[in-house]
């Protein structure tokens, strides 16, 4: 069993410790007997996604995000092809914005998006940083983390999180957050999101096994630091929610 995990623009799109998402995923896969290779695709290089089984991008500054978008736009077909042949894709932070039809920046300029999602994003004058408690659409239990965004997304019909009890959703407080379409996943929740949410990691591991027709072992390793860190964060945020 062998998988390639591809990190797009790690040197550019890594504001909130996002590289850790890949470290966590790799270790979980390796602990299940998968040979998981990490590959990096730096900004301005020619991305070869033909061998990628999991493709990830994290959050960048708004100006960096636009440079990345301009570079990636001609390669949108490669990303779509990877999805079509059974790769999973996760974009977090404002990398999510790239997946839609367009991004309108603070000066009102519209940037063409990758068009993998039928939504549009508009940047806002202010940021809406906030701790998050979210209800996942695809797995059980609450998700936790933080969002540090300055944009709203309109037109998402299939959010990754159906509602938030804490934090700002795609277009309003408490509303649905993120985007999912097949095995394309996107969210503004950082943390990093897989570090903070072992259940999301488990879900992705399950999908990667399913996409390759592998059977998930019955016995799964325990990750007590992940589990307790999640429980403590949920406890602290919930206490805050109750006031």
């Amino acid at each position, binding site marked *: 069993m062998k998988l390639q995990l591809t990190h797009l623009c790690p040197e550019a799109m890594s504001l*909130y410790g996002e590289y850790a998402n890949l470290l966590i995923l790799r270790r979980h896969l390796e602990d299940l007997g998968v040979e998981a290779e990490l590959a990096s695709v730096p900004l301005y290089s020619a991305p070869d996604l033909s061998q990628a089984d999991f493709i990830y991008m994290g959050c960048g*500054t708004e100006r960096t995000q636009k440079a990345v978008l301009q570079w990636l736009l001609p390669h949108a077909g490669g990303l779509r092809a990877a999805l079509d042949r059974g790769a999973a894709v996760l974009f977090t932070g404002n990398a999510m914005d790239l997946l839609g039809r367009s991004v309108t920046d603070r000066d009102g300029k519209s940037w063409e998006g990758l068009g993998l999602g039928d939504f549009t994003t508009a940047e806002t004058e202010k940021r809406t940083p906030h*701790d998050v408690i979210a209800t996942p659409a695809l797995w059980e239990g609450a998700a936790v983390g933080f969002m540090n965004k300055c944009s709203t997304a309109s037109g998402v019909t299939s959010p990754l999180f159906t509602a938030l009890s804490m934090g700002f959703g795609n277009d309003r407080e408490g509303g649905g957050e993120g985007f999912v379409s097949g095995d394309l996943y996107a969210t503004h929740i950082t943390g990093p999101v897989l570090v903070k949410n072992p259940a999301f990691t488990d879900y992705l591991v399950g999908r990667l096994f399913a996409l390759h027709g592998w059977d998930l072992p019955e016995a799964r390793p325990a990750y*007590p*630091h992940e589990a*307790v*860190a999640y429980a403590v964060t949920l406890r602290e945020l919930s206490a805050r929610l109750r006031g």
Partner: protein
Amino acid sequence: MRMLLAIVICKLLRFIGKLVGKGSSLPGRYALKLCPDVLGRVRLPKHIIAVTGSNGKTSTVEMIAAVLRAGGREVVYNAEGSNQIEGVTTLILTHCTLGGKMRGDVLLLESDERYARYSFRYFHPTHFVITNLYRDQLTRNGHPEWVYDAILPAIHPDTTLVLNADDPLVACFARGHAPEKVKWFGLEQWNGDSEEHRGVYNDGALCPVCKHPMEYDFYHYAHIGAYRCPACGHCRPKPDFAVTELDLAAGRLVLEGDTPIQLSFRSIYNVYNILAAWSASRLCGVEKDTIAGVISRYILKNGRMVRFTLGQHRGTLLISKHENSVAYDTNLRYVREMGGRCSVLVIVDAISRKYFTGETSWLWDIDFDQLACDTVERVYLAGTYVNDLALRFDYSAVPREKTACFADIGQAVEAIRDSGDEDLYVVTCFSDRDKLLSRVQVERQEAKEA
């Protein structure tokens, strides 16, 4: 008339506030309600120096104040750290005559980087020192470019910018500013530099101007160093004020090739604080010898380094702001470079003392691998977020058998007290400092280094 009323009310409220131990923002807030443009009406001193940036503001301001006073200037500054417009208003009006003339030769302001544009709406600094822009409190600040964009509107064309030449983002403030109104400070190459970037992330990877890859001749630390962008030409300017020699181990540096200074605290941070203070003081006309004399005798009084005893351990608390990986990295580097047999306690309990958050992604930006060395015997992790810390360490080069985790800080302190006699370094934030200091025997003199 409104100005007079604002001054009187401000002085009165400040007087009462001091009696009852209240903060310094409220009098200014009321004064601004009475006279919103009062800061544009009062007559300010000849020199107005503002200091902003992610790290080192308070230390730099205190150092500048000490130097200028030694140089015979009467300095008014916000020693209480009230660095938003209300606090600045209180400071200015309480030092005004009823006629609206501010006393003193120099108004010195530590300025919050996000709110500087509000503080400087009705007046502007003659000199604006910008120390650095790092990832700092990103839960509030977003990211360094966001902070850059927030500072930019605070810059007046008549202001002389005093900029850190070694920070590629700070250097962007000079773009579009009259060149004769930009002064640069920087550290020249020294033997602590590296050719390769050190750390978990590199905010100097891309040019802040054109977003193409940058090249470095050398890194001092993080993204601070000698950078150049082959695509657009953005590069480190030649400093007007430079540390030309540095020997951190010996605690000595030389400024402008001719002025040696003894370091009271051997940290690269302190070098930059000194550089910023030196530059601002020189621009105000203080003699080199006067500055050197003050700085060589200068002892940091901000409680960021505290000596203590715990059992058989000689302890040092190194304050490292949570949500600020550069501050952590610098202190971890200090621990590693001190070289003696030691253990390290890292506490993450309350992430901020000012607001609530459960955000811990910044732990992944810290280069904890620096603790993977023979001299570090144990790494104790403690606090509410100990499992987040432990998880971070699971992915570091520090052997797992060297770490011990305690959700309860008291239990961590007891465990350390009851075993060993190696030196102990505690790395934590202001928000968690007293949870340690209340449990150890603190030495009375702070921050003194032989």
